[in-house]
């Protein structure tokens, strides 16, 4: 049994912050292009769910045996994220979950662990989700360079679209970017000339060279190389050192996306797979506490999965953040005006009791009258029959906007106006919810909406996740 890539997916948040806007705020530095910025209701976990849903398009989530989540910006420092993502994807309860954390190399580590689980027979399919929404120090090169995003790869033993032909990796305790366990809000680093030279360039080159040598391949045989880079200059420099020509290097999207950290090499890989032809040899390489390189070959069935939103469609679908102030607000980067307004409250008990509705996204259909309804009730909203329901997962259905309002004074909302929507779902059922990732000037009755997994609010000390609606993204 040899594990391969069964499917891929990616997610790029809809908002972009232009580097001109950052320069207006701070002056200086790299001014080209823009970077992807998570909405105020997004984090690495919600973006991971979005990439995973993209990856699982056309696959039954119940066939997934395990889920690994890789990130250096998981929303909880103690409490697994993979288990929340697995619930949001409605995986089986016996699907195993694990977080891979604390290193930009954790995406590759999760990938290797997934291969091992499949090759060892523990699983037929393992979903690897990598995502980051890192908080760079304001007015730093990190801030100019880092973007937010996620990628997902489904690793499995059959239905393989991309084979894994070889791999090589090293672990290294090289200290280039770090955060101490307490008190470090932002990442720390060292002189860039040193960490790029002896860290990034040296490590990745050693690994790729070894992999190619082990496989008796010359760099010329690579169709596309999808590899991590901290910035455009270093990324280009590594390509030259590896002996790759410009058309062999998959564009790293620094000016459209930014360096997304843990998922970055996987997002570049997804971009490469989107345009790969059967037989193409693709190199993927990650960096972080060492380096890992993978040699992949697109199979004949690659075209079956090239309909994802992936990188291309997600990058094309975007809205500009109106300014740096909006970014400060979304990332909650300042101490804001205090108001006498009492804080919101939540309850872990409610979360526990209503996981199926809130996280897994289930409503139900009455066996007596056939009506689909949400939120689930003991008595049917329509015919009042009691406890006679079949589950219906509603969050995969699209909805049509029936009516809406735009609240300019919703005190809890980081992004005004708060748009309330009533949407009628295909196949029945009506939802009352908020609309996110929307242009207030383009909301209209009758428009099509889709579900997206988001943070509702911060309350009672934990993250309140559930589903919102957004205009169909792309």
């Amino acid at each position, binding site marked *: 049994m040899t594990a391969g890539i069964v499917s891929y997916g990616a997610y790029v948040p809809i908002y972009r912050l232009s580097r001109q806007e950052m320069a207006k705020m701070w002056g200086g530095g790299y001014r080209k292009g823009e970077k992807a910025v998570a909405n105020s209701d997004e984090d690495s976990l919600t973006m991971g769910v979005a990439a995973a849903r993209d990856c699982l398009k056309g696959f039954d989530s119940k066939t997934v045996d395990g889920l690994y989540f890789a990130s250096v910006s998981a929303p909880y420092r103690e409490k697994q994220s993979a288990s929340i993502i697995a619930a949001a994807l409605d995986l089986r309860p016996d699907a195993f979950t694990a977080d891979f954390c604390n290193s930009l190399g954790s995406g590759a580590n999760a990938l290797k662990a997934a291969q091992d689980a499949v090759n060892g027979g523990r699983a037929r399919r393992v979903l690897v989700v990598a995502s980051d929404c890192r908080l760079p120090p304001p007015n730093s090169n990190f801030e100019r360079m880092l973007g937010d995003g996620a990628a997902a790869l489904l690793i499995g033993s059959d239905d393989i679209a991309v084979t894994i032909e070889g791999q090589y990796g090293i672990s290294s305790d090289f200290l280039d970017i770090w955060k101490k366990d307490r008190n470090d809000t932002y990442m720390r680093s060292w002189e860039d000339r040193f960490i790029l030279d002896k860290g990034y360039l040296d490590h990745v080159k050693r690994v790729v060279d070894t992999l190619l040598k082990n496989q008796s391949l010359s760099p010329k045989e690579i169709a596309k190389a999808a590899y991590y880079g901290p910035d455009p200059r270093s990324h280009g420099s590594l390509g030259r050192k590896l002996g790759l020509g410009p058309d062999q290097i998959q564009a790293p999207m620094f000016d459209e996306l930014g360096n997304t950290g843990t998922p970055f090499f996987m997002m570049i890989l997804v971009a490469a797979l989107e345009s790969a032809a059967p037989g193409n040899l693709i190199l993927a390489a990650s960096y972080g506490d060492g380096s890992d390189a993978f040699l992949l070959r697109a199979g004949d069935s690659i075209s079956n999965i090239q309909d994802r939103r992936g990188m291309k469609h997600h990058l094309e679908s975007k809205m500009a953040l109106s300014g740096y102030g909006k970014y400060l607000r979304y990332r909650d980067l300042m101490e804001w005006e205090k*108001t*006498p*307004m*009492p804080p*919101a*409250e*939540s*309850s872990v008990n*409610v*979360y526990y009791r*209503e996981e199926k509705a*809130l996280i897994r996204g289930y409503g139900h259909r009455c066996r007596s009258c056939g009506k689909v*309804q*949400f*939120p689930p*009730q003991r008595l049917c*909203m*329509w015919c009042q029959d009691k406890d006679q329901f079949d589950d219906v997962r509603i969050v995969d259905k699209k909805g049509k906007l*029936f*009516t*809406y*309002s*735009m*609240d*300019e*004074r*919703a*005190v*809890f*909302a980081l992004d005004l*106006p*708060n748009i*309330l929507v*009533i949407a*009628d779902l295909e196949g*029945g*059922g*009506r*939802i*009352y*919810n*908020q609309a996110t990732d929307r242009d207030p000037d383009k909301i209209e*009755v009758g428009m099509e909406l889709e579900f997206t997994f988001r943070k*509702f*609010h911060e*309350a009672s000390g934990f993250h*309140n996740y*559930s*589903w919102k609606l957004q205009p169909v993204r792309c």
Partner: protein
Amino acid sequence: MTEPFKDKVAIIGMGCTPFGELWDKDVDDLMVDATTEALEDAGVALKDIEAVWAGTANSGVNGSAASAPLQLQYVPVTRVENACATGIETIRNAAHALAAGVYDIVLALGFEKLKDLGFAGLHPGKLSDKFHPIYPAGGTGPGRYALAATRYFERYGLGPVGGRRTIGRLSVKSHYSGARNPKAHLKREITLEQVLKAPMIAWPLGLYDCCGVTDGASAAILCRAEDVKKYAPHHRDDYITIKGMGVAAGPGWGKNKEEYDFTHWTETVWAAKQAYEMAGITNPRKELDIAEIHDCFSIAELIAMESLGFCERGRAKQELIDIGATIAPQFREAVMKKWDATEEEIKQLPDPEDVLVVNNSGGLKSFGHPVGGSGGREVYEIYKQIQRKVEEPSRQLDNVKLGLAHNQGGHPGRFVCGIIIAGVPEERL
């Protein structure tokens, strides 16, 4: 079979504090002031009151909310809560106890202190029902009523501009009356242009589509009609009686059931059916003289008028608003000039039979809306109009014999509605 209720219970005294941002009054002051006025009006001593219904949404809990400030000595006090429909519910319960013959003279009190919070707007409470992070979706009062405005404008082809102009006229009307009501919160006239240019609160509702956030209290002293001569002989010729009452609590899933279209208030339809049947009313437009309608938002007045059967659904603009049929006749020309009515429209008087004056008090919009205090305040307006004791004579209407007070709590798709119809007792007609 139940006994007929109509004309059984009389209102013999009422009180209402000035409504507004009452920085110098606490909630106890409001209760004392409203109750004192009502007792003096009735000529009854507080120690004679046999039972009390005390209504507030959020300004107190249990019966001691009222027994403490009023120094009540071990009489039954029931705390009543039905959100914004609390006021009508206190009077309804008090009336039922009288009709049942359990007590002879009672007090129904409604109050709310909203302006001690330190911020504008209402207390958000829990973000949710049952701490729920998603079902309420962060909906505010304006945000949720605006869902109905968007749908109404869409369904009846008014468009956002035409729709806003239509409901804006209702605000112009309410403010004109409120400016002539010494107890009102927002005592100033406005023009349609001001309404349309005001800051947006929750699209499509602007500032002047929304009522004030208000402190206030109202109180009513009630007894059985047969006992008026005993308790309040001086009111023998001007007490009023309750003709009909209705309360309907909807199951509240309008936002989740495709059959609800947000252009009518289902709970109002059902509560009105109860009240009209009890009062023997078959044609409310012609039979009622005045109505005090729950207009926390201008769109709410429009939709409630249709749901109360004052005109066909979708026809309020043509059959009530644009022809000025709900404006006090003495204000009609001046109000219509403040919107964009032409001379011709102003001259085109509606059939006197079709005039039904709505919210001549200023309504919640201009008089203000202290949640638990509003229902009693609506009945207070009907009471004073019938008695011809309106504080500012220019607001006095002629020949008022029958009025309807409409009060609703919740938000579109999930309401509790309360209605009281009160008027001149049969024997004086």
